[in-house]
């Protein structure tokens, strides 16, 4: 995605991911193998806000470490399916809820070194 689509607040605690006219597909019968598709478009704005609760997920066997914070995430979006004249607009960002969100930094694979202690 264009780097301009992802912005951070000065303190790094808020991240905003925003894109418009993202080409997607409408595939109501997915995952049926013969599920038909219709071209569609998505505009969305997603805002992550970090809390003060740290998280650290690490697995040396699988060679990954995520260090960050639990977060609040909220989303507003509009979808359009021109061929069937369908649009859907979510309520404003503030009204959405998310059950799980984290934001932080990840290293894995060749970049991973196990934490000491």
């Amino acid at each position, binding site marked *: *995605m*264009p*780097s301009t*689509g*992802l912005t951070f607040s000065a303190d790094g605690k808020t*991240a905003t*991911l925003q*894109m418009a006219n*993202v*080409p*997607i*597909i*409408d*595939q*109501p*019968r*997915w*995952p049926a193998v013969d599920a038909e*598709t219709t071209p*569609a478009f*998505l505009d*969305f704005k*997603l805002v*992550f806000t970090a809390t003060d609760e740290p*998280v650290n*997920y690490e*697995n040396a066997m*699988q060679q*990954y470490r*995520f260090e*960050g914070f639990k*977060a609040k*995430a909220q*989303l507003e*979006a509009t*979808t359009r*399916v021109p061929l069937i*004249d*369908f*649009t*859907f*607009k*979510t*309520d404003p960002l503030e*009204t*959405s*809820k*998310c*059950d*799980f*969100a*984290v*934001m*932080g*930094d*990840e290293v*894995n*694979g*060749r*970049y991973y070194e196990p934490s000491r202690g």
Partner: protein
Amino acid sequence: MARDRLGSFELNRRRWLELGITSALAAWLPGARLNAQSAPQSCAPSIPQNHEPSNGGPCPYPIPWLDKNGNHNQAAMPNVELSSIYHFKGKLARCSGFHGMGTDNKGNRLAWGTPTTDYSYMAGEYWAARQPHQAVFAHT
């Protein structure tokens, strides 16, 4: 990534396209290409000419034990690999379990979201074709 499967929602057709939307957005810096549904084909390894070395293509590696096809990952939750890319370092955020309400163009009020409605961003460096690459990715 499109783990939005037929679930228990009562809304039977649209669900904000949720059951059918699959979009993995990847764009490259520089270049700013926007791609949906799958990784760009342009990063496939080329056939070397004149005996040049072949080091693979610049496509990011999927997490090996999660998805050999590189399209899906696992639901975001504590103590799991949150990245969709192997050999990655950088900023990452994941969220799942969105739910809310919205309105279609006929005025119908519809609920959207399932436990697997998730979004993410990844911004940083990944390793492919024996060299580092900088990129920003989003998953919707």
